[in-house]
């Protein structure tokens, strides 16, 4: 599988989808909660912080070209290190993936399949995820590069359809909930870029460090810009504090589109593109869970793990009692603390691996002398 290679564009599209998918869930509302009328500043500010953190990571990565984070953990701490880091990332994905799966399914149920049981709606996504994971990372990434432009068109149509409701006064007072809330309180909100951690696992598929760096920077910048635009448009249309009420910000915006008797009720199309993006995200998630299990426990094959993992995800996602419980888990825990796994853990692992590597190289040189 390590012989698989995919291009920069495919990788960037996949990462953009992973990070920006939140726009179609509760992200714009959460930004309004954090920053008030200045909620749009939060993704922009956290983007800058993420770029600084990635700059450090990419500098440290130069010594480990073509290796994923599990390989680097092996260098840093041997088998113990590899298993520990693998388990941490697994816990991370096993936490967020069922939540997103549940949220997408519940949202589809709320909007479209009202009478259908939640397990039925979940199956729709689960089967897609299983098929995608069987087909492998190459297929997933290439499909993502087809889906992302389609979703982008849907996103742009919703934005353009709402231009007539734009009102700059809705962004005032300019500092919203205050500079402290935005610039200090929002630091943990770097977690909105936590999907970025997938990059550490696709490093072997993209090869050189230069590409790794370009893909990382490009995907972070584009996702940050998309999320900033997403939050900005929402806040330009829905005034604060009403903006903190809506369950699915962009579904509301899609419902507002109304140009004459013909161009209205476009949310049905929006829901379709939205599910496509969700399916692409969830497929990547399932694939990387089984991939990490395989790497962590040095297994030879990953495919036999797909169905059991999907069943586990299906079961876990039904544990939260309600949609509100899932939303709280995502907003109050994952989107506050996952930056530690996405940015701080890799820095720690890379530093340790660098130290160990240098020490070993020093010992070898000493032995030669």
């Amino acid at each position, binding site marked *: 599988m390590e012989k698989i290679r995919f291009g920069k564009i495919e990788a960037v599209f996949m990462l953009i989808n992973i990070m920006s998918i939140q726009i179609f869930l509760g992200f714009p509302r959460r930004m309004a909660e954090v920053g008030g009328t200045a909620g749009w500043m939060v993704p922009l500010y956290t983007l800058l912080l993420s770029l600084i953190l990635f700059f450090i990571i990419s500098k440290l990565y130069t010594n480990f070209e073509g290796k994923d984070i599990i390989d680097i953990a092996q260098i840093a701490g041997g088998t113990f290190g590899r298993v520990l880091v693998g388990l941490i990332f697994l816990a991370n994905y096993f936490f967020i993936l069922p939540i997103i799966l549940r949220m997408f399914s519940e949202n589809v149920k709320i909007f479209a*399949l009202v009478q*259908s049981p939640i397990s039925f709606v979940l199956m729709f996504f689960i089967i897609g995820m299983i*098929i995608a994971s069987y087909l492998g990372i190459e297929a997933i990434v290439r499909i993502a590069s087809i889906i992302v432009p389609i979703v982008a068109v849907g996103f742009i149509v919703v934005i353009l359809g709402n231009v007539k409701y734009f009102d700059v006064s809705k962004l005032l007072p300019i500092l919203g909930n205050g500079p402290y809330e935005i610039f200090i309180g929002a630091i943990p909100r770097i977690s909105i870029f936590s999907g970025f951690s997938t990059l550490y696992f696709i490093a072997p598929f993209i090869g050189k460090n230069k590409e790794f760096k370009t893909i990382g920077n490009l995907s972070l910048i584009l996702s940050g810009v998309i999320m900033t635009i997403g939050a900005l448009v929402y806040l330009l249309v829905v005034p604060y504090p009403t903006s903190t009420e809506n369950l699915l910000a962009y579904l509301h915006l899609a419902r507002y589109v109304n140009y004459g008797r013909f161009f209205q009720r476009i949310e049905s199309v929006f829901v379709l593109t939205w599910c496509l993006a969700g399916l692409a995200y969830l497929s990547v998630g399932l694939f990387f869970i089984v991939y990490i299990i395989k790497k962590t426990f040095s297994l030879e094959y990953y495919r036999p793990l797909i169905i059991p993992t999907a069943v586990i995800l299906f079961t876990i996602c039904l544990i939260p009692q309600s949609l509100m419980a899932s939303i709280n888990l995502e907003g109050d825990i994952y989107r506050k603390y996952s930056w530690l796994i996405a940015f701080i853990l890799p820095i720690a692992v890379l530093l340790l691996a660098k130290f160990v590597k240098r020490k070993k190289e020093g010992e070898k040189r000493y032995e030669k002398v």
Partner: protein
Amino acid sequence: MKKYKFVMVILLICLQFSMLTGCFDRREVDDMAYPIALGFDKGVTNDLRMTLQLALPISIGGSGSDGGGGGGGDKSVSVVTVDTPTIYSGLNMLNTFISKQINLSHVKVIVFSEELAREGVTKYLHAMIRNKEFRPSIHIVVSRGSAEKFINAVKPKLETNPARYYEQLLGAYRYTGFTADSQMIEFYHRTESSAVQPVAVLAGVSRFESSDDFDLEGSTYKEKGRELPLEGDFKAGESTKTGDLKIDIMGLAVFNGGKMVGELDGDETTYHLMLDGTFNSSFFTMPDPQEKDKFIVLNIKRSRKTEKRVDIINDKPKLCAKVILEADVLSIQSGINYESRENIGVLEKAVEDFFKEGMLRYLNKSCKQFGTDTSGFGLKMKGKFLTWKEWEEFNWLEKYKDSTFDVTVDVKIRRPGLILKSLPDV
């Protein structure tokens, strides 16, 4: 083995296709009943009296919505009323005796009775916003009197499609200036806003059965010091009109949050639109500046966006607005040659003064009588603060009541119609 896997994948894809049909949610269009208008009154035997005007698609389709014009309008709808504790329990009750399931996705208008609106509509709005079937573009109307009576009186004559009738009726503000756009989503946003307050279209049933019954008791012309009413000096239901169409749409219901606090007549509504920045165009009648017993009629249009500013002087807001309009001459009854270079300025000045007086009267009513900022000066004021906390502590709506005003109106008469020069009678 490879062949087996391929078959498995194909089977899984087929299984997924079957799920896309969403068989649990299978609903046929024919199995649904589509209300076009919903009316809410205070209930007698329960909290709420809910009236539904249901579209009869067979009648609409049968008579054709575009051709022929008129005649079958009253047959294109059916009206039902129930007393119920809540909106959804009412729907449940209705579903027991209407053979089709009620689907609200084609509702065009929600009518609240004035009595209910004065008690507050927030709890009903929340219930509607939460439901995906209620479209954000639904119009909010307040009926002077019972909503049930109003809905029963809606019998369109020129349009057989009732949905289209409401769309056109409530979009007429663009060329009359006597009502406003009161789509549910904007109304809802404003009920929760601390900077701008909502308005809803004011509707009613005409109290005159024939032209012999006409009187001016309900007109607001005397309050404005006029000898005779102009066309905007009425509220819904009071207009001196009669005919097949019993309903009347004129003026606005003014809200403070979710509670109705007052009414504007057609004339004040025009000034509201001008200050709000949503005025488009309308015919406008005013007394001739030189011969007061004669009228000048103009087609007034918005020229540029209204400029608004709020200054704080001695801790009191000073509301400054500059309204920029243009006009075409439609009629000069006196025959005075206002089109001439010498006289055009006189007419423009007279129109500006007339509008300014009306706007000051409207602003005074808005601040002192209603205490609600429906023109959105608060949106400008909000920009003077850095944080939301500072803005909230400022308590705009309390300060608004003590406002003073500075209104500038700029009118340019652009076109004289097809006559370039007025000549007096011989």
